[in-house]
């Protein structure tokens, strides 16, 4: 069976979520459409994608208004989860839902690696 881009991206996401601390992950276009996801049942992927992309875009715009360089990532901290989004090339962003007690440094390294892989696929 041919390995489609969507399957390759899903594989990258599954690798991320298999570590345990990342509970869900999605690749989203910069303008908020879902490309691929590995999210638990009951999450509305389309709405999650739209909101994550808008949040990331708004954060970038906010920082640009300060005449500072574009943010590397956006981290949202809540009592029972962290939501982290990071750019994955010009076209896409990677969004991860993370266990709040996880070691953030390791998660960020994993995400960076995955984002690089995604960048190669989404061009």
């Amino acid at each position: 069976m041919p390995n489609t881009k969507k399957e390759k991206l899903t594989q990258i996401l599954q690798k991320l979520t298999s570590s345990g601390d990342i509970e869900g992950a999605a690749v989203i276009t910069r303008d908020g459409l879902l490309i691929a996801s590995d999210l638990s049942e009951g999450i509305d992927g389309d709405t999650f994608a739209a909101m994550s992309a808008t949040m990331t875009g708004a954060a970038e715009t906010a920082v640009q208004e300060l005449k500072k360089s574009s943010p590397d990532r956006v981290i949202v901290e809540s009592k029972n989860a962290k939501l982290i989004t990071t750019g994955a090339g010009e076209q896409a962003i990677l969004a991860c839902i993370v266990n709040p007690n996880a070691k953030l440094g390791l998660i960020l390294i994993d995400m960076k690696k995955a984002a690089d892989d995604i960048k190669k696929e989404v061009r």
Partner: protein
Amino acid sequence: MNMPLKTGIPKLDELLDGGIEEKKSILFYTTPGVENIPFAFQLLYNRLQQGDNAIYLVNTKKPDAVRFMLANYGWDVSEFEKKGKFAFFDAYSGLLGLNSKERFSVKNTSSIEEIKKELTKAMGELKNNNTILVFDSLSNLLDLCGTPESTLACLKNCMPDIQKSNATPIFLFTAWAYDKDILNQIRTFFECVIDLKAIERKVILRNYFSVSKAIWLKKISKNEVPFKIVKPGGVRVYIPKILVTGPYHAGKTSFIHSASTKAVSVNRLGTTIALDHGHVDFNGFAVDLWGTPGQERFDPILELLGGESLGVVVVVDSTDPKGFARAKEMLELTKTEGLPSVVAANKSDLKGALTPDEIRKRMKLPNDIQIVPIVADDLKQVKDGEPCKLRQKDIESVLSKLFEMVV
């Protein structure tokens, strides 16, 4: 001429000029990875509801699994089974060495002759009525029984009998790595071929259906219709992004909440500050609506929100002509000028509201952009700073006009 049989998928019926013709052989030719079963389910259930009979030949899973899937889509066939209008043809259990409890079944699932014999029996029992005969799947039939060539030849022999017993055969086929020659033979063999494929456009893989052959059509439409499978519901024409924009306080959020089965909004202090997002399920369409904020201070994110839109609803306040220029500016900012658009003229029942013609004149809109007046369902319920319920009839008029333009 006989009336075409409606498939229950309105857009597909349109491509087929009303529906499939009875007693013609129909093939769903599917790219691997694309779901074709819901198409057969929807067609079958729709025909059962219209009073036809149906037989579901299954050789890919147990009939109980198919019953379970049907129920998941919200289609209960048990009543039809009880009345004898619907039956399974179990060509799977035999493969596992199990006895089948279905009305029709074969022991040797790899014998096309045995299948043919049982099929004749089934056709004999149901022949007094139009019957839909679903083969799920042709690919498995080719894999299990002899060579693909001999199986096709045998099917060809069956066809006159099938047609004599008033049956319309529907075949599900997934185009795995078969010989090119076989794939061509299959395409020529069927009288109507509906293609289901996945096409990658702008990094996102989407599913499309199209009709590549139907012998009763003089002209085949080249239209490729994007679709999505929803549970429950089945096949829907899919439009991933319709932008809803317009000036501050025009009623964008109200529009989205009134139109959607499910919607979320990022509203603070009574105004949208990021976006509204809603799922619409209407008239065979599944559509996601994206609503922008209206105030100028949010302009920097408008371009991001507008990207990849396939159509626009511009909501304006009919009583506030000052906002019209802003509406046009927002089309520019979201980079959606020139896309199919409909103007929803909200609050058209309030004192001082302009008529669609006046709005067209003031906004200098070309004639191909339609203006639809919309009003609140109940003015007494309208509260400032909260989305209100708009009249359903008006919303549907806006949506159907826009969807028609987009697809």
